[in-house]
């Protein structure tokens, strides 16, 4: 059942890209459904169980029996619901919020994020937990980074901080697995390791580091406001439901075994309260509504961490309750800010003062949310704050400590009240600047138009959360069951929590009244408070260190690379040549005796080939013009082809031949962008000549001394004797490529595809040189390309289809006879090259296939064949099917993958380099094929 919930969210991930492709931003109206379905499934399953559901699916049975141990308890149910329900709401909301560009990256990252978070809170296996933790880190990085170039640095800093925490978690996981001998969380929690003080100390340090970085606790707090460059739905999800709550979940998960430990208590309580206070003060100084909320999140999480540190049942219950309250009001507020930002074009409270905010619904959401955040009855936030005060007052700590902690909590609560009021006023356009400051925008540039209400589908979801925070505040007892079971998980013993709006005249109630009174005064006196706070920024930040570290690392890299820098590749390339020579010299002195050479190594015809190669190499080296150099290089290539033929390698020879042709074609395509002849005539440079001759001798001597002195290797013997019967294919080279080392070939296909992508990226980022003007005399027969290419065009019209058909024949028969994916794709590529050569102008682009799509198809097809092999027990296990008397091999499908990928790269090269339009396509949009690339519309995300 748990697995089904995970799979449902996985469906959302898989569908996110195609849905956003076809429906654009409206994909959000579909994507929330699987998340809600998963939530319903979990709730039903939990209700039918006795408080715990455990499932196991094997993953790595050989290593500590690591597997998909999933476990649903009250605690994980609560967090799953936050992740799924708020995630679904955010997805629904995004359908209105998003701009019309970069939709796919948003929905893909968001749904991946939801999946990772769900697995994280359901994981009952430490390895699964760790992988999911890191997945959330990566997904959040992409969500922040996709906002554009200004988001790059914040995204990288966020990544650096959270990855540090991830490494700490890895250390903790390793310690636990090594000490407990199991990866199952429930078994680890029961193990003896928690009695060893040294291990416990290390575990506390690593776990706390992981949780602090994830939940933005002091001194790692600053990534959270830093990541505010992301769009509002992302902020709402990251800060209300998901990312930061992962740290809280981790702490709660290990709270049953660590609560009461002095180090745990000291670290969590001190850091939590510092963060809470810092965040509250910082929030009072922000003008950007979203940034204000970010600091508020920090502050609220500080409360949670401090509560977990205290560790008493009352404190943990309060933490659970406050987690719910915070998730509800914070997501509502973030999303409401998104609505304001979207409609007004700004979220700066100073800019909003000159606008008429004609958006009653959104403002109501803001008011309810702020009231809950401030802890005003009858909101849920009031109830959770009451519990929080009670927990601090009742903390089992020596001396005056409970009073000190309560005092800090109250101080934070006053700050919270003040910034909540400031937020609400700011959002309504009633921000009052300190009396003597003129910081409201005036003059002609300010936008004075009234801000109108957004459609219902936009403010609907924030309104749902705001209503929940109000309704649950009035009837909190409906939450009692959820909170009780979640607290049970966090405390480790069964709990029954009773929730009510009215607690009676308790000390906590007195504190609440005090907070509200003083807070109200603070809101009234906000301009004075601000005048005091704004000129006094706090510069305590762990992120400064991170930024310094990042800069230093880049500088170190620059220093190291400067040793070999320079655009002259000779400086790099001569080094390996010299190493080659020194290897040869070392060999000369150390190798004493060699086994005797085999008898039949050389045939007389070989000497002819040596002579052709020698002539070709010398001509290449001596060539004066670029055209000549390319032509004679081709001659060398053909003689190498002959070498392969002479050595009995038919497929290799065919491949070499076709590659040689295509290399020349590609070179010719680019040649007209380079000067005709090489630079000034130099004499044979002595250094170059000496090192070349020495390297040549070294290569010769090495080959002569170290090869041809043993019989065929054992694997080769096996292949020649049994290869055919094992695979059913007679072409041994082909069966090695597509069966014995298919995984390797798949890797090489990927490299090939990446080269194609890299070419596109290179051409997109740097313009190629202009085409060199050529003077053709007007009477020359080649002056008119139309007539000049008539013959070739007529020829290619006939030949290209024939060649393509031949290439497919070569592909199909590759298993038994010369051919196979590589050779046939190169032949097809050559056929298409013929079309290009026959075209009268550069602009006649004959092939309009999506070459990037071809490359992708090829690689994906190859990988998919590997997965089919899993049915036979292993990745790439070969399969055969008998269809109508023919035997179909799975490796043939793999060969099709090879065919597509290689053909894609060739077509890409021809299109991108050969035609101007191809170049333009690359420059506009690296991946063509998307029909929805119309005129870019006004993007909301660029609005600051």
């Amino acid at each position, binding site marked *: 059942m748990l697995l089904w919930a995970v799979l449902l969210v996985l469906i959302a991930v898989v569908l996110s890209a195609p849905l956003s492709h076809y429906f654009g931003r409206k994909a959000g109206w579909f994507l929330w459904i699987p998340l809600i379905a998963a939530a319903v499934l979990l709730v039903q399953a939990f209700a039918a169980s006795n408080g715990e559901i455990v499932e196991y699916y094997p993953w790595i049975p050989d290593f500590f029996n690591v597997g998909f141990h999933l476990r649903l308890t009250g605690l994980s149910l609560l967090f799953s619901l936050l992740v799924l329900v708020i995630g679904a709401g955010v997805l629904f909301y995004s359908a209105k919020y998003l701009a019309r560009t970069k939709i796919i990256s948003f929905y893909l990252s968001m749904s991946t994020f939801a999946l990772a978070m769900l697995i994280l809170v359901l994981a009952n296996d430490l390895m699964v937990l760790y992988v999911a933790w890191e997945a959330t880190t990566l997904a959040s990085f992409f969500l922040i980074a996709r906002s554009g170039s200004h988001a790059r640095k*914040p995204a990288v800093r966020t990544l650096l901080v959270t990855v540090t925490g991830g490494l700490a978690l890895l250390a903790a996981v390793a310690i636990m697995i090594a000490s407990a001998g199991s990866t199952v969380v429930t078994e680890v929690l029961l193990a003896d390791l928690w009695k060893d003080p040294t291990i416990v100390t290390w575990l506390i340090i690593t776990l706390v580091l992981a949780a602090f970085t994830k939940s933005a606790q002091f001194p790692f707090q600053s990534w959270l406001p830093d990541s505010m460059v992301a769009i509002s739905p992302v902020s709402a999800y990251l800060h209300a439901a998901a990312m930061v709550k992962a740290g809280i979940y981790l702490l709660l998960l290990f709270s049953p075994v660590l609560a009461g430990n002095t180090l745990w208590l000291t670290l969590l309580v001190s850091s939590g309260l510092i963060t809470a206070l810092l965040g509250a003060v910082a929030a009072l100084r922000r003008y950007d509504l979203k940034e204000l909320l970010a600091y508020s999140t920090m502050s609220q999480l500080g409360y949670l961490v401090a509560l977990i540190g205290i560790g008493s049942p009352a404190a943990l219950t309060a933490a659970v309750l406050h987690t719910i309250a915070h998730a509800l009001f914070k997501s509502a507020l973030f999303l409401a800010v998104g609505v304001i930002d979207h409609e007004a074009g700004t979220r700066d409270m100073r800019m909003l003062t000159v606008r008429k905010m004609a958006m009653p619904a959104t403002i109501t959401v803001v008011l309810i949310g702020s009231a809950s955040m401030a802890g005003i009855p009858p909101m849920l936030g009031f109830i959770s704050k009451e519990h929080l005060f009670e927990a601090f007052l009742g903390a089992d700590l020596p001396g005056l400590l409970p009073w000190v902690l309560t005092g800090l909590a109250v101080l934070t609560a006053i700050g919270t009240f003040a910034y909540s009021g400031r937020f609400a006023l700011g959002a309504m356009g009633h921000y009052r600047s300190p009396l003597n400051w003129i910081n409201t925008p005036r003059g002609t540039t300010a936008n004075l138009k009234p801000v109108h209400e957004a459609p219902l589908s936009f403010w609907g979801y924030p309104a749902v959360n705001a209503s929940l925070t109000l309704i649950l505040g009035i009837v909190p007892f409906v939450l009692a069951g959820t909170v009780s079971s979640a607290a049970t998980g966090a405390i480790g013993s069964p709990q029954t929590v009773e929730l009510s709006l009215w607690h009676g005249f308790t000390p906590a109630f007195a504190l609440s009244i005090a907070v509200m009174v003083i807070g109200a005064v603070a809101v009234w006196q906000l301009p004075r408070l601000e005048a005091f706070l704004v000129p006094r920024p706090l510069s305590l930040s762990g992120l400064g260190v991170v930024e310094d570290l990042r800069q230093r690392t880049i500088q170190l890299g620059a220093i190291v690379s400067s040793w070999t820098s320079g655009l002259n590749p000779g400086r790099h390339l001569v080094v390996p040549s010299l190493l080659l020579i020194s290897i040869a010299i070392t060999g000369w002195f150390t190798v004493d005796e060699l086994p005797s050479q085999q*008898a039949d190594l050389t045939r007389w015809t070989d000497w002819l080939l040596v002579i052709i190669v020698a002539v070709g190499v010398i001509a290449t080296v001596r060539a004066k013009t670029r055209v000549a150099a390319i032509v004679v290089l081709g001659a060398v*290539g053909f003689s190498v082809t002959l070498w392969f033929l002479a050595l009995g390698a038919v497929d290799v020879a065919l491949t070499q031949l076709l590659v040689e042709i295509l290399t020349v074609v*590609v070179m010719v395509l*680019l040649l007209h962008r380079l000067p005709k002849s090489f*630079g000034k005539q130099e004499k044979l440079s002595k250094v170059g000549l000496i090192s*070349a001759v020495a390297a040549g001798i070294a290569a010769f001597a090495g080959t002569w001394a170290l090869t041809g002195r043993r019989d065929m290797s054992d694997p080769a013997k096996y292949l020649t004797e049994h290869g055919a019967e094992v695979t059913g294919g007679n072409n041994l080279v082909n069966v090695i490529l597509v069966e014995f080392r298919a995984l390797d070939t798949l890797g090489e296909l990927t490299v090939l595809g990446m080269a194609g992508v890299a070419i596109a990226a290179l051409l997109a980022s740097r313009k190629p040189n202009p085409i060199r003007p050529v003077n053709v005399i007007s009477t020359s027969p080649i002056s008119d390309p139309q007539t000049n290419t008539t013959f070739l065009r007529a020829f290619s019209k006939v030949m290209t289809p024939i060649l393509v058909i031949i290439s497919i024949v070569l592909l199909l028969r590759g298993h038994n006879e010369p051919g196979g994916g590589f050779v046939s794709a190169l032949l097809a590529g050559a056929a298409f090259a013929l079309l290009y050569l026959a075209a009268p102008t550069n602009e006649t682009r004959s092939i309009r296939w999506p070459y990037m799509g071809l490359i992708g198809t090829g690689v994906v097809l190859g990988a998919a064949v590997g997965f089919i092999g899993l049915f036979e027990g292993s990745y790439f296990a070969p399969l055969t099917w008998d269809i109508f008397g023919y035997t179909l091999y799975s490796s043939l499908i793999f060969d099709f993958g090879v065919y597509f990928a290689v053909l894609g790269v060739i077509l890409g090269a021809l299109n991108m380099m050969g035609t101007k339009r191809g170049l333009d396509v690359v420059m506009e949009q690296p991946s063509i094929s998307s029909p929805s690339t119309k005129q870019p519309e006004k993007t909301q995300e660029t609005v600051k």
Partner: protein
Amino acid sequence: MTLALTIGLLTAGAVYLFTKREMLRVILGFVLLGHAANLILFAAGGTDRRSEAFYTSTDPTAMADPLPQAFILTAIVIAFSITIFMLVLSVTGEDSDETAEKVEKLDVAAESESDGTPHKSFRTNGEGK
């Protein structure tokens, strides 16, 4: 002997071209070096058996070693794609593919700064915005 000689010739030509300043010549050098490397692989399998590696047509005792052939086949195609990439490199950026004169222009340290002026906000918790 003959194969070793071919390899020596190709290597010498490649290294000589590496010392040249035009990017195109360096690329040609790479192509030559690619040939040499492929032939070395072949030599490693031995050149005494030279009949095609097809099970039907040959008796296994005379069959050439198929293992290096499979290596070389993909190596050729990969080398081809790298060659294309380098060719594109040679025509982008500057007017010519000459390299030596441009050395002074390159300042790697300066390049690393190009990802923007230091972000001010991190020191002051976003105060700089």
